[in-house]
């Protein structure tokens, strides 16, 4: 048994030995239960235990707890130990509480009282123990109970250094866990001067607290910049013997240096020229030292030195103002790229990634491309390879894109599963961003699907289709390439999707060659059909109907396929419906109608790449690999929108091209007018601006469609403008008769909420416009009109609303409405905005109803009945009996009546 130091608790040591000697888990549990029974009986016994015994038993309980067993007693005994005057007893009490008692325990009040007593006492050892307990638990209750005591300790003149250190960090903990419970006071102005404290330990602790305060309010603590610089300068330029014990393996105060360098990263480069020069000198000195021969061969020396160096480089990158320093930093990191220490290679790649984004050092970073590519291929640690990928991505530009993308594709074949998805996104983005020749882009994406099909998310293959459709110079090439790719005996389902889509649109461009004639193309696609999921099959069915238009000569073959039991009676409703509808469409319509309906897709509106959006989402949280993060993105919108009855005007560019076109595309787009399931959203492609409502000029088609499939009458009414109002506006308005707050409107772009309050003849109404998309809504305009002579009865004053709604943001608009005389109509609010360049319009009734202006009048029974009886002429009484459609719930009726303003 090892010696137990100082206050040996012999019983504890024996117990621990016993546990360690247990041969089995059962024996251990048996021994523990025996001990628990023993302790319990001691705690319950008549004999009062002395402090030593209490301490010993509490400590045993703690040990049992740390072994992973539940402890349900002993808490009170631990709290008792807090009032002991012996250090060891107090320490065990506080330790038990810190480890075992949750913030919400009933005993917390007692604990806080004990802490307060210790803080108020004069014994620095007790104060420190109390502070450590607070820092370890850090509950809100503690923050509230001790919000005055702790700051006082920190700035008081007679507090000793080690207590100051603990007080600073304890305060930091409380500021983190419940920032609003700590009153800001006089201590705040004095806090930055702790950076000047003689004692380096105090500075080390205070620097963390100050950084936290600075992050919240940089302006208020601006003074810390010059203090931090001068402190840093004194450390960096001192010879290591000056700092005595704060030198660690010949490096002067490395941890404090790191903290100071981090603190400075919260500010722009210093304005004061003297401070600025001094800081530059520090940074140069740190870079110089990196070049000096090491003072020790020990890894501790190089780690400590490089910890400071990397933090200095972070600061240089943060300031991003001194090209000389940036390039020097880059050269230094370049040396590390080939260092034998994996840690250094990893950190160099990480830092260089930041340097690549600075205009001053981008070129310098590019010089290391070969080394980084070698790292990608040879590093043993996947996290290092991941960093290499990140750096290649960051250093990529038009001059090296082809090479970098090529290397990344090559590496992808053997890359770890954990980083494949992210790599695919990165390759797809680089290929798009730096493509000079779009045939290259198409090749890259198809290669991605070939090499890592499972990791190619929807965004990636949607994007290649968008680009092919928008660029007619690449369409023929794309058709040829997908045709060839589909020849492979086993091809990824994503390849079938892209192939189906592209051949459906542009198969005619390669049909001249008999080796890729219409029938060959169809057979090729259809040979994959049975291996695919229903979603892909739905897409292929749409490609087939497009084939009927492109290649009338194979119409009968396709019709046979559509007619087959496998399709027309498929268990999947969507496939069944598509088969039936496409078959009918191809049988009944004339060639002209068919050609109009199935015309080539119009270009997609230009927008931020959805892939980039996905990568942005993926990166900041740096979520580990896994499929759960396949987010529901914009791609799902069109299908859902159909049920929302929103009248969204088609993008003007499409309108200009041909009147019927937008609606015909919708027709294919919707596929299933009733189901609207996202899986069949063939042409959705993340483009919510695609019109979802058949509009003017499509009547004939709709009529025909109606008679074809009696059950699919939905599109005829779906989304059609009802009396100028957006669909659903009337119902939403009615909800507000008995309510003051709620959601007035919601679709996939926008949520509109309303809050209102009324007082006598005045009403105030706030409308909240929430942008649900990941893009900015532009030219946001709200107009209110008053139908008929409503303006005479209701005067509306509208506060302006800004022209933009940022992605994910909410803006508020206030309306003031005074009721002049009774009114029946409601004002109409028209909201217009541009979403990805497409004009959107939503018309809603502003929920202002006459009853809101009813004010209850107080009166006693007599007055009431006098008035009541006075109402005796026939026109003053009206009675109507209606049958309740649902059981009457008193609470609900009360709520409604109060919302209606009659209670």
């Amino acid at each position, binding site marked *: 048994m090892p010696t137990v130091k100082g*206050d040996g608790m012999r019983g504890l040591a024996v117990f621990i030995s016993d546990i360690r000697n247990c041969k089995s888990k059962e024996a251990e549990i048996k021994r523990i239960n025996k001990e628990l029974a023993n302790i319990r009986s001691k705690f319950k016994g008549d004999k009062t235990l002395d402090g030593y015994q209490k301490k010993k038993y509490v400590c045993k309980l703690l040990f049992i707890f740390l072994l992973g067993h539940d402890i349900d007693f002993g808490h009170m005994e631990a709290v008792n130990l807090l009032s002991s005057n012996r250090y*060891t007893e107090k320490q065990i009490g506080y330790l038990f509480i810190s480890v075992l008692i949750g913030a919400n325990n009933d005993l917390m009040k007692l604990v806080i009282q004990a802490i307060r007593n210790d803080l108020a006492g004069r014994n620095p*050892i007790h104060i420190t123990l109390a502070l*450590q307990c607070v820092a370890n638990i850090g509950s809100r209750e503690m923050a509230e109970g001790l919000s005055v005591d702790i700051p006082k300790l920190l700035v008081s003149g007679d507090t000793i250094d080690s207590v100051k250190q603990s007080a600073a960090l304890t305060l*930091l903990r409380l500021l983190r866990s419940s920032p609003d419970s700590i009153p800001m006071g006089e201590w705040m102005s004095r806090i930055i001067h702790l950076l000047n404290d003689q004692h380096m*330990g105090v500075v*080390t602790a205070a620097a963390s607290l100050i950084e936290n305060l600075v992050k919240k309010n940089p302006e208020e603590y601006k003074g810390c910049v010059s203090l931090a610089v001068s402190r840093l300068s004194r450390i960096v330029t001192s010879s290591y013997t000056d700092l005595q*014990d704060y030198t660690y393996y010949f490096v002067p105060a490395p941890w404090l240096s790191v903290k100071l360098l981090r603190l400075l990263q919260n500010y722009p480069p210093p304005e004061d020229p003297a401070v600025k020069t001094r800081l530059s000198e520090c940074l140069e000195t740190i870079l110089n030292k990196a070049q000096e021969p090491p003072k020790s061969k020990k890894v501790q020396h190089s*780690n400590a030195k490089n910890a400071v160096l990397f933090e200095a480089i972070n600061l240089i990158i943060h300031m991003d103002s001194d090209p000389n320093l940036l390039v020097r930093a880059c050269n230094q990191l370049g040396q590390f790229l080939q260092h034998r220490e994996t840690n250094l290679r990893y950190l160099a790649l990480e830092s260089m990634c930041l340097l690549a984004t600075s205009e001053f050092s981008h070129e310098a970073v590019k010089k290391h491309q070969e080394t980084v590519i070698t790292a990608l291929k040879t590093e043993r640690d996947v996290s290092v390879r991941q960093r290499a990928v990140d750096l290649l991505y960051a250093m990529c530009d038009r001059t090296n894109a082809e090479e970098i993308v090529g290397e990344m594709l090559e590496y992808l074949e053997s890359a770890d599963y954990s980083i494949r998805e992210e790599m695919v996104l990165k390759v797809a983005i680089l290929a798009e961003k730096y493509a000079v020749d779009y045939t290259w882009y198409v090749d890259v994406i198809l290669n991605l699907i070939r090499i890592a099909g499972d990791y190619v998310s929807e965004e990636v293959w949607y994007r290649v289709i968008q680009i092919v459709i928008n660029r007619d110079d690449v369409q023929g090439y794309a058709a040829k390439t997908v045709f060839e790719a589909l020849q492979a005996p086993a091809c990824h389902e994503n390849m079938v999707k892209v192939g189906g889509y592209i051949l459906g649109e542009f198969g005619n461009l390669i049909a001249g060659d008999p080796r890729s004639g219409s029938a060959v193309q169809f057979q090729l696609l259809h040979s994959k059909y049975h291996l695919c999921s229903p979603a892909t099959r739905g897409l292929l069915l749409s490609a087939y109907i497009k084939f009927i238009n492109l290649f009338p000569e194979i119409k009968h073959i396709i019709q046979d396929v559509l007619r087959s039991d496998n399709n027309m009676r498929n268990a999947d409703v969507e496939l069944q419906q598509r088969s039936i509808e496409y078959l009918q469409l191809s049988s009944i319509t004339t060639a002209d109608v068919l050609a109009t309906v199935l015309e080539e897709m119009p270009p997609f509106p230009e927008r931020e790449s959805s892939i980039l959006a996905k990568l942005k989402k993926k990166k900041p949280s740096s979520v580990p690999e896994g499929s759960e993060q396949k987010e529901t993105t914009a791609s799902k919108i069109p299908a859902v929108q159909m049920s929302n009855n929103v009248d969204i005007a088609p993008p003007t560019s499409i309108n200009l091209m041909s009147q019927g076109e937008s609606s015909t595309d919708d027709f294919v787009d919707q596929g299933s007018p009733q189901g609207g399931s996202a899986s069949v959203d063939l042409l959705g492609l993340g483009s919510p601006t695609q019109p979802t409502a058949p509009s003017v000029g499509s009547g004939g088609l709709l009529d025909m469609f109606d008679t074809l499939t009696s059950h699919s009458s939905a599109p005829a009414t779906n989304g059609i403008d009802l009396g100028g109002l957006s669909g659903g506006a009337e119902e939403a308005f009615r909800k507000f008769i008995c309510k003051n707050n709620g959601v007035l409107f919601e679709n996939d772009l926008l949520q509109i909420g309303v809050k209102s309050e009324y007082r006598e003849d005045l009403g105030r109404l706030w409308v909240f416009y929430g942008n649900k998309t990941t893009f900015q809504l532009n030219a946001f305009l709200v107009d209110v009109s008053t139908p008929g002579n409503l303006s005479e009865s209701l005067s509306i004053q509208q506060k302006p609303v800004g022209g933009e709604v940022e992605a994910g943001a909410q803006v508020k608009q206030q309306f003031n409405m005074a009721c002049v005389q009774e009114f029946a109509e409601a004002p109409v609010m028209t909201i217009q905005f541009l979403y990805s360049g497409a004009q959107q319009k939503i018309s809603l009734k502003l929920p202002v109803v006459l009853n809101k202006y009813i004010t209850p009048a107080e009166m006693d029974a007599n007055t009431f009945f006098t008035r009541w009886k006075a109402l005796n002429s026939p026109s003053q009484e009206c009675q109507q009996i209606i049958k309740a459609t649902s059981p009457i719930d008193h609470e609900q009726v009360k709520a409604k009546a109060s919302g209606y303003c009659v209670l």
Partner: protein
Amino acid sequence: MHFGHDEKQKLIEEVHAVVTVRDAKHTNFVKFRNFKIVYRRYAGLYFCICVDVSDNNLAYLEAIHNSIEVLNDYFHNVCELDLIFNFHKVYSVVDEMFLAGEIRETRQTKVLKQLLMLSSLE
């Protein structure tokens, strides 16, 4: 951050699973949830610190070593058994050097002096 007992147990298991599979050629840093773990192995024991992604890796790596040197001095050639039998003292050492998740004191002689003074108390 507050964790319940079960969550803590789960954290320990997860960290164990992430760290112990790595070999000596790997870095001493590993991503963990939305943080990173900086760890160092001494014989069969791993010492781990979980820090923010933006924190300085090497500084924490050396902070681990710094505290191991203190433990070594304090226990005169520390071994695993010292840490088990004196687990309550280990907490004192940690509280001297780290507090509220931050580095509190880095000077070894000062920490040791304080610890010896505490040991001499009843």
